[in-house]
C-alpha cells in the first residue's frame, strides 16, 4: 500500500473521510478546508490500524475476545484490557507502515524540529464517532519520531481500555466495525487555551457564545484542573455580558523530556484575564465561521500560540446537549399579525 493509503494530510481530508480518519481527523481536515487555522498535521488512517491488527490476529485472536467479554464483569474486562494493551504496545509496526509515518513526520518537521500531539481518532464504519469522544488517549508534547511511533501504538491500545471496551459492549457496537485512526499534529505552544460553545451551555441560547480559558495548554481546562476565566459574548453583537476572571492557580506546561506537567502560575498572572477583548472578538469570529460552515452550534477547543499570537482550533464537534432537545418553536406565524399582541394584552402570564 502506498503512503496515502496509510497517511492523509489535513488539507486532503473532510468529514466524509471519517470512516478512514475518525471524527477528530475528519473534523481537523474539514476545518482547514473551511479556512480555519489549525495546527498542521496528518492522520494515520484506520487502514494502518487494520494492517497492524491483522498481524496481531494472526498470532492470536483479539477482537473475538472483546466481543465475548461480559461488560458487567469488571475483573474480566480489566484483565483482558491489560493483556490486549500489552500486546498492542509490545508489537512493532510493520516496516512499510513505520516508514510511511516517518516520512510524514519528517515532512511535518521539515522546517524545524517541533513537538507534536498524538491524538486518538476512533471511528466506526458508520462514523458514529461522537459517542467515543474522550474515551481514548491523547499524548501531548511528544518530541521525537521514536516517541511518536510509541504513542501511536498507545493510542491504538487505548481502544482496548476498560472504559472503551465496556462502552462498546454495552452499546452493542460490532468489534469488526470499530477502528482507530491517529492524528499527529504540531503541538501549539499555548499561552492561553480553552473551550468555546457557540451557544449558551446554561440556556441553550444560540445568540451567545460561552468561552472558557486559562493559561498554558488546554488540557488544564478540559481536564478540570483549573477554574478557568469565563466569558459570555454576543455572537452577533460582540457584547461581553459575562466576564468572570478566576484565580488560576496552576497551568499545564511542557515537561522537559516530553509530556506535560502542572506548574504554579506566577502570582501576578493568577488573577489576570488570560484573553484580551480583541482576542475574544477574534475567537468569536472564528466560532461564527465554524458554526456557519457546519450549520449547527459547535463545541470547540482552541489555543493561542505563545509566539505568533495566532488563535488555532484543536477540535470542533457538534454541540450535543441542547441540540438533542431542540425545543418546540417559540412561536409561529398567525393569519392576522395583530393577534400576536394578545400575548401582551390578552391576559397571558407576564
Amino acid at each position, binding site marked *: 500500500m502506498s503512503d496515502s493509503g496509510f497517511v492523509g494530510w489535513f488539507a486532503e481530508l473532510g468529514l466524509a473521510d471519517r470512516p478512514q480518519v475518525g471524527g477528530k481527523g475528519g473534523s481537523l481536515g474539514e476545518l482547514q478546508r473551511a479556512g480555519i487555522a489549525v495546527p498542521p498535521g496528518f492522520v494515520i488512517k484506520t487502514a494502518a490500524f487494520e494492517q497492524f491488527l491483522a498481524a496481531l490476529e494472526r498470532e492470536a485472536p483479539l477482537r473475538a475476545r472483546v466481543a465475548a467479554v461480559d461488560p458487567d464483569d469488571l475483573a474480566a474486562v480489566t484483565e483482558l484490557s491489560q493483556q490486549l494493551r500489552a500486546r498492542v504496545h509490545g508489537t512493532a509496526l510493520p516496516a512499510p507502515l513505520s516508514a510511511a509515518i516517518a516520512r510524514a513526520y519528517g515532512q511535518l518537521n521539515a522546517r524545524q524540529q517541533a513537538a507534536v500531539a498524538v491524538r486518538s481518532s476512533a471511528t466506526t464504519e458508520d462514523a458514529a464517532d461522537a459517542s467515543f469522544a474522550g474515551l481514548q488517549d491523547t499524548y501531548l508534547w511528544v518530541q521525537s519520531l521514536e516517541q511518536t511511533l510509541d504513542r501511536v501504538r498507545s493510542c491504538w491500545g487505548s481502544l482496548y481500555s476498560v472504559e472503551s471496551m465496556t462502552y462498546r459492549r454495552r452499546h452493542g457496537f460490532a468489534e469488526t466495525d470499530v477502528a482507530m485512526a491517529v492524528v499527529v499534529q504540531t503541538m501549539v505552544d499555548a499561552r492561553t487555551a480553552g473551550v468555546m460553545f457557540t451557544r*449558551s451551555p*446554561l*440556556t*441553550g*441560547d*444560540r*445568540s*451567545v457564545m460561552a468561552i472558557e480559558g486559562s493559561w498554558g495548554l488546554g488540557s488544564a481546562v478540559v481536564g478540570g484542573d483549573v477554574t478557568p476565566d469565563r466569558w*459570555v459574548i*454576543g*455572537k*452577533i*453583537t460582540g*457584547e*461581553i*455580558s459575562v466576564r468572570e476572571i478566576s484565580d488560576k492557580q496552576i497551568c499545564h506546561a511542557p515537561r522537559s523530556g516530553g509530556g506535560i506537567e502542572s506548574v504554579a502560575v506566577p502570582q501576578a498572572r493568577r488573577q489576570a484575564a488570560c484573553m484580551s477583548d480583541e482576542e475574544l472578538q477574534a475567537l468569536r469570529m472564528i466560532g461564527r465561521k465554524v458554526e456557519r460552515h457546519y450549520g449547527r452550534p459547535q463545541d470547540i477547543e482552541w489555543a493561542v500560540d505563545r509566539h505568533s499570537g495566532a488563535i488555532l482550533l484543536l477540535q470542533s464537534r457538534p454541540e450535543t446537549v441542547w441540540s438533542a432537545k*431542540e425545543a418546540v*418553536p*417559540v*412561536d*409561529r*406565524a*398567525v393569519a*392576522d*399579525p*395583530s393577534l*400576536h*399582541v*394578545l*400575548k*401582551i*394584552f*390578552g*391576559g397571558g*402570564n*407576564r
Partner: protein
Amino acid sequence: MSQSKPKQFPLPSSLKVVAGTESAQAAYPYYTQFEPADDQRFWFYNSMHFPEPMSAFDMVTAEAAYCALGASNTRVHCLPTTLGIDHRIINGRVYIGGNAVTDPQEIARRLEEFKQRAFYYYANWERLYSQWREKMMALINQAQQLPKPELPEFEPLANVHAGLGVAANHRLLDTYQKTLEGYYRMWHHHFEFLLLGYGAYLTFFDFCKKAFPEITDQTIARMVAGIEAEIFRPDDELRRLARCAVELGVDSQFNGKLSADQLIDTLRMSGEPGHAWLKELETSRHPWFNINVGDGFYHYHRAWNDDLSMPFASLPDYIERVKAGESLERPVGKLLAERQQLIEDYRELLTTDDERAAYDQMITLAHRVFPYVEGHKFYCEHWYTNLFFNKIREFGALLAQNGFFPDTEDVFHLTHYELESAIIDLMTAWSNGSAPRGPARWPQVVAQRRAAIREWAKHETPPALGAVPDVIDDPAIVMLWGITRETLDSWLSGSEQDPNELRGFAACRGVVEGTARIVKSVDEISRLQKGDILVCQVTNPTWAPIFGKISAAVSDIGGSMSHAAIVAREYGLPAVVGTGNGTSRIKDGQRIRVDGGRGVVTILH
C-alpha cells in the same frame, strides 16, 4: 436565610404629611388625597415621571395624563386585563395604582371589544398616525394662536367699533380655559396610540427573550429603534448650524466667550453673513428648539427656545469639529444597514421556518408602531408642554403685575382651580374698577407652598405602599413603568442592598470610571469637565451636544427604550438610566464606575 416577618410596604394611612406642610398638602384636589379604603390596595411612587415633589399647578400633568391614559385603556381600546391608573398625592409625591381586570368572563367580554378597536388601529396604523400628526399640529397651532392675556385700561376702540360684544376680562377666562382644554386634549392624543405601540414592541421583545434567553434589552432596542426619529433632530440642527457658521465665515464669533444674547447681537450687527446665520437659526428653532431639558412634566423644564445657553454651549465644539474636517452628519444609510443586518443575523439563528415567520411578523409590527412611540414625545411632552407652561407663565406675569404674588413663576404654586379663581378675581375687579382680593390672599400661600416643596424634597418617600400583590400582571404598569414582582422584591429588600451600588436599566454598554457631576439644570452644564460622568434626572436629546465631552451618563429616569437610552446608544456613550435616585445618592465630585452593559453604578469615592 432567617425567617423574618413577612415583608410589607407601609400602608397609605401610616404615611404622614410632613409636619408644617399640612395646608400645602390640603391644596391638592380632594380626589387625590389618600382615603382609608386605599389601605387595601397597592400603590407605587411614580418616581419615573415625577422624581421631585410637584408644585400645586404642575399636578395638572398627572391629572390630565391619567385621565387620558385611563380613557384609552378602559373605554376606547378596552384593554382586556387592565383599566386605568388611579393617582394620589402626598407630600408632593405622586403615587399610582393600577386597576386590573381579573374576572375571566369580563376579560373575555373586553377582549372582543379590544379586537374590534385595537386591531383596527394596527391594521390602519399609517393612515391613523398621519391623521394624528395633522390633529396634533392643529392643536399646536391653536395653542400658538391664543392671545397673550392682558387687561388694558379701556377696551381697544377697534373692538368696540367692530361690535365684538365681549370685553378683555372675558377673553382672559376664555384663554385660560382654552389653555387648559388644549392640555387635557393633548394628553388624549398622547395616549391614542401609546399603549398599542408599546404592546407591539413588547410582543417582539418577549419573543426575542424566549428565543434568545440571554439577549440584552439593548440589542432588542437597537433592532426596533428608528434611525430618523424626531428625537435626533434638535442635535442634528445644531450640527447643521455649526456647518453653516463655518460656511458663512462667522465661526470665529463662536469662541465660547459671549453669552447667547451677546452672540446674537454681534451677529445682527455683523452684516450679511451674520444675518444669514441668524435666519438659519430661526429655521432650526421653529420647531426643533421646542425641546425641553427634562421630560416636560415640571414647569421649570425649560425649552432651548426659552434659554439658548444650552444649545449654544455646544456650538464651539461642533464648529471645531467641522473645521477639522468632520461632516457631523449622522450616517443614516449606514445606521439603517446596520440595523437591518442585526435583524437578519438574529433571524438566521432561529431554528425553524415557523419561528422565522413569527419573527418577521412581530418585527414588522414593531417597526410599524415605533415611529409613534418615538415621535410623539417631541410633539406632546416637549413642544406642546412648552407652549402650555409658557402660556401659564403669561398669566403669572399678569397676576404678578397686579400684586397677586411677587414673581411670575409663583403662579405654579396655585392649583389649576385656584388659578382660575385668581383669574376670575382679577377679571371681576377689573370690571368693577375695584381692587382684586388676591394680593391679600396669595403671597403667604405661595410662600408656604414654596417652603413645603423644599421640605418635602428633604424627605425620602417609600417606593410603594399597601398590600404586596402576588403578581403584577397589569400590562400598562409593566410596559410604562417596567415594574414587575421582581422590582417589588428588590424594593422590599432595599435595606440589604450594597449602599454603594445603584441599579438601573442598561442603556448603552461600556465600563467607565470618572468623577460624578450632578447636573440639575442647564446653568450647571458649564461645570462639566472633559471626561466627567454626567449624573442627572433625565437625559434626552437636549443633552446630546455635551455627550462629546462626558465619558458616561447616569439618570434617575428612563427605561431601556427611553429617549435617554436611545440617545446614549446613538452616541456610543456608556449609560445607566432609571436609577431612581442617582442624583440624590451620588454626591458631586465622587468617583464612580458606570457599567452600562449591566446597568450598575458603583460609588468608589
